[in-house]
């Protein structure tokens, strides 16, 4: 079995399932938000805050953000390990890949904390 220490669940099968479960949650959240904006042509601050501060919506937003972390990491990891390779990058491949993966983790960490602050401070 081919395993990789930097994959999300330490196994391809686990990543495969997580990628799909998080995709379904993110798709549901996307449709929900799109529906909200499509049905509120004239938006106000009150309507917007009112919509996002109900507890079910706060929980749904948190779920979507957690899904985004898993989904984006698995996706970005896949792209990175496919393209940042020796036959494109030569001897710099390993260092470039590590830098790229670290940057992705840092960005996702900031996204997660920013979103949690945004969702729960309201």
């Amino acid at each position: 079995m081919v395993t990789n220490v930097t994959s999300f669940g330490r196994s391809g099968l686990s990543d495969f399932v997580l990628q799909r479960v998080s995709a379904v949650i993110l798709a549901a959240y996307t449709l929900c938000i799109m529906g909200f904006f499509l049905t509120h042509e004239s938006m106000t601050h009150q309507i917007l805050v009112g919509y996002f501060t109900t507890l079910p919506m706060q929980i749904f937003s948190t779920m979507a953000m957690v899904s985004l972390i898993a989904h984006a990491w698995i996706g970005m990891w896949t792209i990175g390990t496919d393209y940042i390779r020796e036959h494109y990058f030569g001897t710099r491949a390993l260092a470039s890949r590590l830098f790229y993966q670290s940057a992705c983790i840092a960005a996702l960490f900031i996204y997660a904390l920013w979103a949690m602050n945004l969702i729960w401070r309201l």
Partner: protein
Amino acid sequence: MARLLETVYARNYFLSQEETLSMKTERPVNIFLLRFAWPFAAIASILHRISGGVLFVGVVFLLYIADLALGSEPGFEEAQVLLATPLGKFILFGLMAALLYHLVAGTKHLLLDFHVADTLEGARLASQLTVGISIVLIALAGIWIW
């Protein structure tokens, strides 16, 4: 491509499953993309990846706008002004396009997992449908934004 697969199968064909699994030297084959004829399905597939990468970066923009708009009444007005500028509209449209394409292509991927359109002909048609449906949705998003 066909010859490449033949070589891989020929090497493993006479081995038992255990022997194949224990062969640590047999790594997955990576195709060198710069010397590769790009069929339509491959373009549809790479667009799924590109749109995913665009969304990953675009989350910064969405969080920034959400933070402004949810933060305070003046912040909400500032967000509205930002989204009304040509650059704001362009970024919003770009992200909507990436999101819609990623959503449609992802739905196709989930159907594929349930063996819908997993034949060669089916996959060709599905990739054409993915691009076609996305173009319609992206055009509608463009009309909505402008």
